[in-house]
């Protein structure tokens, strides 16, 4: 569960007693409620789930961890002994598809 998308806060405003924001998701703009992250400013990124911002994205942390991911392949690690048989894959046999989808 939990389709939550990161988006950029464009502006904030108040409506019906709730602190809200216009949030941009890759070219789409949608409203979200900021009551749970009231300190967020325009220009910052938030995680939005069903119209509510649940957390502020820590951009520095994101940069740091993404960098670590990219460097993964460059780390020199001692090769751990690996069992060849673990990697057996069954040969794929095409199954006749019933166009009716059943």
């Amino acid at each position, binding site marked *: 569960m939990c389709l939550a998308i990161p988006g950029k806060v464009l502006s904030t405003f108040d409506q019906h007693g709730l602190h809200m924001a216009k949030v*941009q*998701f*890759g*070219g*789409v703009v949608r409203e979200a409620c900021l009551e749970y992250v009231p300190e967020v400013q325009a220009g910052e990124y938030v995680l939005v789930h069903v119209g509510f911002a649940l957390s502020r994205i820590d951009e520095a942390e994101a940069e740091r961890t993404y960098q670590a991911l990219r460097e993964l392949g460059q780390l020199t690690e001692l090769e751990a002994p690996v069992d060849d048989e673990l990697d057996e894959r069954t040969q794929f046999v*095409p199954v*006749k*598809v019933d166009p*009716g*989808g059943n």
Partner: protein
Amino acid sequence: MPTADETSKILGASGPEIVPASAPFGSCPIPIFDHKRIVLGHGSGGKLTADLIEKIFLPAFRNPTLDKMDDQAVLKIGDLRLAFTTDSFVVTPIFFPGGDIGRLAIHGTVNDLAMSGARPLYLSAAFILEEGLAVDDLRRVVESMRAAAAEAGVQLVTGDTKVVNRGKGDQIFITTTGIGIIENDVNISADQASPGDKIILSGTIGDHGMTIMSQREGLEFEGAIESDCASLNELVITMLSTSTSTQRRDFIHTMRDPTRGGVATTLNEIASRANVGIVIDQRSIPIRESVKGACEVLGLDPLYVANEGKLLAFVVPEMAEAVLHRMRQHPLGSNAAVIGEAVDTHPGMVLMKTEIGGTRVLDVMFGEQLPRIC
């Protein structure tokens, strides 16, 4: 507050029948419900629609032409091959960025004809108007149809108008028919797709469907996002006129416009009709950032979202580059790309290599695509 009695009175009204099915796995009756009422999903172009066609329409009207199940019927009358099609348009809202129901009606019908390689000639349009529709709105729709017909080079030659009571018809419904002529050396249909064919997509996906969805869901878009509604007949002529050493025009096996149900559903229909397998590469599929963002936000898959100005073409491999080049020179094909190919393994199945290098099977859409939270 409603009581249990009132509730059971309502529950007693007809709902889907629980039909015990004979189960191969034991004697306990398993409730399986079949649709006793039409639901919205029956109109979305996916499995439910196919189900309706197979169970209700085909058995009643069966004949060799209908059984081909292309978007248009190809009729031989003397020496002439006519393409003949019909379509209806019920979109809401009736005006949207990039078009309106009228423009959609003209282009949609022209495209159904063009996909068989026909030269679209004449259209008819029947209007069902809801009592209370603003005459100015009707005027706007009709003017839009005039302009669209002129763009496509077709004539509206006959029509009809009916009016229904307020509440019985969503402002305006339009039903069209269209006829065109297919030249003798052109032979394009779904069942001709062959292993080795390259699959070309003429441009970005999801524009029309997400424009409509955005109007309904109150999404705003930065930058222009609008319906891609357009007639493709000129683009098809351009493609067919790609020069070839043989001077023959049989290098395009299949064409289809991925409307309801999107690219995924259309590819499945072709794979099934032609009994070929299909493999596509997710990274090669053109999509606008704004459409992608809208799909992410709503939890929709752009491969299942409707397009109204795009086509998929199955082209013999040795001509694919040349056809692609021709397409890219035409305004409606500027973002054209080869997205995959037909194969002889896994016939009837559409596979996609995902952007991270995994594999995914693209099935036919079931019913309505629903925004999800999960």
